[in-house]
């Protein structure tokens, strides 16, 4: 599927001269314009483009905010307020950057779930998937580092909780090295700022490898079967670029609606209180996009053998991310798309709902009782609480990967796969054979 031969012909003397010296236009043409793409990609396949757009928005607004922000524990909080009140359009730039992170994660979750639904991680796309998980991991690190910069109560205490997580695994010497002191303080803020500026470019670098891997093996598609020839594909430009422009416009409208009408929708009030190392906020919550992992961390309130609850929680949380790396080998089914996997289809949608519930549970106070069954000696409610809910959710999260994925491949009977992408598309259109085939052929000749 990777374009074996180039379709680029330089149109004038200048481009011919350049093509002989640096074939950059040829590269752009083959990868961005004439790149053959399955003709049946739906809107779920536009989120890669949306994610690239998000990364650019974050980098551009971030570079500008760094011109006004002061990474010093005595000045950081006030410099953020200065950006909000005094810098021309500072409020807009900060709200875009702040909510941009949330929208970035909305898009990345759709993108990842899309991959899980259509089996996009299977042979030959394992490396493509692994690079994607790596990007997700660096995104979470970047978002966490950025969260500490305003030096609010949430910044300080969030940083405390997360660095202590790593300390549980690697010891006090490690946390002191990470902090540059004996607690989260000014040296920590300064290095977190430096790394927060660095990591988006690491994401950009891995994204290039991610797209390279994609363009080497070609897109998966909703049927999960490989294109068998030119009748199954269309050039990226204009068929999918038009689709990209349209969804990016819709995405930006939703994004702008939040930035202008509900800029603190995803935020937390303690993010507007300056950091105080002597006072823990009553309730520490991560941003919504890390809620599921936080819920899994807190779900481990018991010891197993020599593992105490704290280490167990950390291992569970890190395991929840690490397990994504081996998904291509956990899924034993040869059929890629959930369209043709009736049992996996159900398991997948339960997984999505379960993930949403975990994300919600991670933002609630740990002990909140959901179904009261009684009261304890002090008169406080007891019963089914957030921790219990998180434990059930954590169990399903891991069962989906460790039990369901390997076993379904062995026991599930998939539906019959269509013969080809073109046949599947035509069947959907009611079998009108001649015209669509002709329509699909014509644009090829236009390139």
């Amino acid at each position, binding site marked *: 599927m990777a374009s074996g031969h180039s379709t680029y012909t330089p149109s004038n003397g200048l481009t011919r001269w350049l093509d002989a010296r640096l074939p950059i236009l040829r590269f752009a043409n083959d990868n961005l314009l004439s790149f053959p793409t399955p003709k049946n990609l739906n809107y779920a396949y536009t989120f890669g483009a949306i994610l690239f757009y998000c990364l650019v928005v974050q980098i551009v607004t971030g570079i500008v905010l760094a011109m006004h922000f002061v990474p010093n524990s005595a000045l950081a909080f006030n410099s953020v307020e200065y950006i909000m009140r005094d810098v021309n359009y500072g409020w807009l730039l900060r709200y875009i950057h702040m909510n941009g992170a949330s929208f970035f994660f909305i898009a990345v979750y759709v993108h990842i779930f899309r991959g899980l639904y259509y089996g996009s991680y299977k042979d030959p796309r394992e490396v493509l998937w692994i690079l994607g998980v790596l990007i997700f991991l660096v995104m979470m690190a970047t978002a966490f580092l950025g969260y500490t910069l305003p030096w609010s109560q949430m910044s300080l*205490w969030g940083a405390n*909780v997360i660095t202590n997580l790593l300390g549980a695994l690697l010891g006090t010497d490690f946390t002191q090295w990470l902090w*540059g*002191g*004996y607690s989260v*303080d000014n*040296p920590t803020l300064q290095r977190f700022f430096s790394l927060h500026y660095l990591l988006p470019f690491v994401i950009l670098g891995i994204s290039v490898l991610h797209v390279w891997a994609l363009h080497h093996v070609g897109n998966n598609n909703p049927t999960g079967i490989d294109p068998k020839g030119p009748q199954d594909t269309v050039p990226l430009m204009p068929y999918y670029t038009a689709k990209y422009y349209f969804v990016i416009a819709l995405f930006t409208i939703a994004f702008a609606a939040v930035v202008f009408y509900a800029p603190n929708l995803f935020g937390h009030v303690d993010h507007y209180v300056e950091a105080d*190392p002597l006072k823990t906020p009553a309730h520490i919550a991560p941003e919504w996009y890390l809620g599921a992992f936080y819920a899994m961390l*807190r779900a481990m309130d018991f010891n197993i053998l020599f593992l105490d609850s704290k280490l167990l929680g950390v291992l569970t949380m890190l395991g929840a991310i690490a397990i994504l790396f081996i998904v291509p080998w956990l899924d034993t089914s040869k059929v890629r798309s959930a369209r043709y996997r009736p049992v996996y289809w159900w398991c997948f949608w339960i997984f999505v709902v379960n993930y949403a519930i975990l994300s919600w549970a991670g933002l609630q106070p*740990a002990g909140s009782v959901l179904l009261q069954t009684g009261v304890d000696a002090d008169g406080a409610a007891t019963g089914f609480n957030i921790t219990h809910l998180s434990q059930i959710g954590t169990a399903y999260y891991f069962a989906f990967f460790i039990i369901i994925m390997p076993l379904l491949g062995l026991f599930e009977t998939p539906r019959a796969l269509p013969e080809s992408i073109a046949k599947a598309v035509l069947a959907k259109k009611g079998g009108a054979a001649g015209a669509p085939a002709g329509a699909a052929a014509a644009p090829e000749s236009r390139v």
Partner: protein
Amino acid sequence: MSAQQHDDATRRDFLYVFSGTAAAAGVAVTAWPFIDQMNPSAATQALATTEVDLAPIQPGQQITVMWQGKPTWVRRRTPEEVEQVRAIPNAKLKDPQADQERVQKAEWLVVIGICTHLGCIPNRDNVGQPGGYLCACHGSVYDASGRILSGPAPLNLPVPPYKFVSDTLISIG
């Protein structure tokens, strides 16, 4: 000709081994400053000890001082509180340790007020344990000796190294 080739190979091997060794040693000695610059600086280390005047603290009162950037509690316990804490059987404790081992003088409790779960600061209140502490983050309960009674925290609140300089002055660190 073959001798010439052999000579070349030996000379090139030497160049490889020499430059490889120099590069490995160079990377190792250059990496260390880059790693060590992350560790606490001299200025940070200079603030490593804190002296606390005990005279103004009344029985039942507790003050918080900063030691190495960490909130450290100095609490003057009443005889009843001491008695109550020492009545808790070891079997009830997650991280068993006698109160006597945690204090130098029964009256004075000195502990770092950072929850051993994930680093929040517990509050002194009577919700979890009379006279004890409750961490609001994840619900860990400590007694008036800073020992963990229930909740996700695995260990007792740590006792920092300190010594009595006089009856009314301690030096922490």
